C-alpha cells in the first residue's frame, strides 16, 4: 500500500504547486512566474480532476431523502437590519476609495507595487473585496461609489428598451475582460486610473440617460457580477430581511430571472477561463500563426473572446436541451436553463478564491500601507506564504465544483417531482462540469506565458 500513498501524495503536491505559480503570475505583473511541473502526465492529471467531479455526482445519488434536502436548505437565521449608519459609512468608504484610486493613479509613483491605486484596485478590491462578497455577503450596493455619485439622477431621460433584457451587462462584462487582458491595467497606475475615469464617465452618462435604478439593475456589469457572486454567500438580504443561510442555499431557491442572467453566469465563467487561456504557451502558438496569416491581434483577441463565449453558452444549451430526453419532463428548456445556471456560480467563486486568496494575503502589508498612507510612496512589502499554503488552491477549485454538484442536485429536487427524474436530469449538466473541470485544470497546469501582441 505504501508506494501507492506516496504516489498519490506526489501527485497531489504536484498539482498543488502548479496552481499558485500560474495563477499569481497572471494576476497582473505583481508576482513572479515560477512554475513547477507535476510528475503525473497531463492526461492523467486531467482525468483525475474530471473523475473527482464524476464521483461526487455518483455519491449525491445516494442522498435521496427529499425532506432532508429541503430541510437542509431552508435553515436560516434572521437578524435585525443594520442601522442606517453602516450604509452611510459604506458610501463614504466607497467615495474615498474611488478618490484615492484616481488621485494616486494619476499623480502617485508609477511603480505598481508602490502605488496605492494598483494595490487598492487589484489586491484590495478585485481580490480581497470580491472574496468577502461570496464568502460573507454582497456589500457592493452599499459601497458602490458610482451609485452614490449618480444618486441625484433618479429619473432617466430615456426609457430602457425592455427587449434588451440584461444582455447589455453581459456585453459589458465581456468588454471588461477584454480590456483587462489586452491592457497593462495591473502594471501602469496611470492607465488604470484612466480606465476607472472612463468607467465613471460611462456610469454617470448611463445613469443620467436611463435613471440610476435602471442603470445599476440592468446594465452596469460590475454591480451584476457582485450580485451573482453574492448569491453564493451565507449572508443574504431578501425582501428587506437579512438572514444567514447555508452557503449556496440561495442558489437553489433563486433561479435566474431570464436567459440574459444565464448568459451573465456563463460569461463570468468564460471570462475566468479566457483570462487563463491567453496566458498559456498554446495560445501564443495559435496567436502567432493566426497573426502571421494576416489577421491582426487587435481583431483576434475580441474574436476569440466572443467565439469562446458562444461556444460555452452553446455547450450549456445543448446539455440543457437533452435533459428532457434523459429525464422525461414537460418543463421547458428555458426553465431548466434558468434553474441549472446558478449552481455554476460556486465554480466561479472557487476559482476566484484559488486565484486570489494567496495573492491578496501576499500583498496585504503593502495594501495596509496603501490604506493608511495612500499618498506616500509605499514600501513594497509582501508576505511570503508558507509551503503548506499551496495545498489550498486545489482544495478551493475542487470545493467549488463539489458544492456545485450538490447545489445542482438540490435544484433538480426542487424542479422535478420524481426523485429518479431529478437524478437523471443532472446527467447532462454533470458531464459538462466534468469537461469544464478538465479544461480549467489543463489551463492551470500550463506554464505561464505573457500573452503575445498585447
Amino acid at each position, binding site marked *: 500500500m505504501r508506494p501507492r500513498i506516496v504516489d498519490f501524495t506526489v501527485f497531489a503536491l504536484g498539482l498543488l504547486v502548479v496552481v499558485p505559480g500560474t495563477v499569481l503570475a497572471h494576476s497582473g505583473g505583481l508576482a513572479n512566474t515560477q512554475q513547477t511541473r507535476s510528475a503525473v502526465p497531463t492526461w492523467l492529471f486531467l482525468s*483525475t480532476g474530471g473523475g473527482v467531479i464524476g464521483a461526487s455526482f455518483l455519491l449525491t445519488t445516494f442522498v*435521496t431523502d427529499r425532506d432532508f434536502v429541503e430541510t437542509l436548505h431552508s435553515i436560516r437565521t434572521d437578524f435585525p437590519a443594520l442601522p442606517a449608519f453602516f450604509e452611510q459609512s459604506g458610501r463614504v468608504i466607497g467615495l474615498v476609495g474611488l478618490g484615492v484610486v484616481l488621485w494616486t493613479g494619476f499623480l502617485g509613483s508609477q511603480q505598481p507595487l508602490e502605488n496605492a491605486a494598483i494595490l487598492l484596485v487589484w489586491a484590495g478590491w478585485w481580490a480581497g473585496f470580491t472574496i468577502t462578497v461570496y464568502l460573507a455577503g454582497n456589500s457592493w450596493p452599499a459601497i458602490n461609489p458610482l451609485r452614490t455619485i449618480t444618486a441625484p439622477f433618479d429619473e432617466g431621460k430615456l426609457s430602457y428598451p425592455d427587449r434588451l433584457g440584461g444582455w447589455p451587462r453581459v456585453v459589458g462584462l465581456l468588454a471588461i475582460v477584454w480590456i483587462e487582458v489586452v491592457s497593462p491595467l495591473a502594471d501602469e497606475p496611470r492607465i488604470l486610473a484612466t480606465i476607472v475615469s472612463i468607467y465613471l464617465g460611462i456610469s454617470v452618462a448611463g445613469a443620467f440617460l436611463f435613471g440610476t435604478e435602471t442603470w445599476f439593475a440592468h446594465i452596469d456589469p460590475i454591480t451584476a457580477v457582485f450580485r451573482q457572486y453574492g448569491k453564493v454567500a451565507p449572508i443574504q438580504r431578501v425582501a428587506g430581511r437579512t438572514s444567514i443561510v447555508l452557503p449556496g442555499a440561495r442558489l437553489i431557491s433563486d433561479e435566474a430571472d431570464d436567459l440574459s442572467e444565464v448568459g451573465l453566469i456563463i460569461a463570468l465563467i468564460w471570462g475566468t477561463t479566457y483570462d487563463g487561456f491567453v496566458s498559456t504557451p498554446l495560445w501564443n502558438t495559435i496567436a502567432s500563426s493566426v497573426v502571421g496569416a494576416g489577421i491582426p491581434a487587435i481583431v483576434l483577441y475580441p474574436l476569440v473572446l466572443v467565439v469562446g463565449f458562444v461556444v460555452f453558452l452553446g455547450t450549456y444549451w445543448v446539455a440543457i436541451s437533452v435533459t428532457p430526453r434523459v429525464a422525461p419532463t414537460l418543463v421547458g428548456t428555458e426553465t431548466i436553463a434558468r434553474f441549472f445556471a446558478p449552481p455554476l456560480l460556486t465554480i466561479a467563486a472557487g476559482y476566484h478564491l484559488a486565484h486570489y486568496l494567496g495573492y491578496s494575503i501576499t500583498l496585504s502589508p503593502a495594501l495596509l500601507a496603501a490604506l493608511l498612507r495612500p499618498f506616500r510612496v509605499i514600501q513594497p512589502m509582501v508576505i511570503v506564504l508558507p509551503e503548506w499554503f499551496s495545498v489550498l488552491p486545489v482544495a478551493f477549485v475542487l470545493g467549488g465544483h463539489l458544492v456545485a454538484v450538490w447545489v445542482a442536485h438540490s435544484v433538480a429536487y426542487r424542479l422535478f*417531482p420524481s426523485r429518479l427524474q431529478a437524478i437523471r436530469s443532472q446527467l447532462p449538466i454533470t458531464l459538462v462540469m466534468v469537461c469544464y473541470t478538465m479544461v480549467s485544470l489543463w489551463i492551470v497546469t500550463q506554464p505561464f506565458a505573457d500573452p503575445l501582441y498585447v
Partner: protein
Amino acid sequence: MRVHDYPIEACETCLYCGREFPNQNILAHHKGRAHADNLSEREQDSVRDALEQETTQLRMYQLQALILLILLYFGFLLVYAVVT
C-alpha cells in the same frame, strides 16, 4: 414558475392545479408532493404505488452508481500504479 413552453399532446394534467406531466407516474409524484392533503383514497394508492416503484428503481440506480464508483476508484488506482 412556467411549467412548459410548448404544447405536447400526450400528457397528464393535474386536476388540482392544471399543471401537465409527461406520464401518470410523474403526475402521481406531483400529487403526493403538492396536494397530499386533498387526495382521494384511490389517488393516495396511486401515489403510494408510484413511490414504491420509484424506490425500487432508485435502488437499481444506486447499485449502478456504486459499481461505477468502485470501477472509477480502482481504475484510477491501477492507472496510477502503472503510469507513475
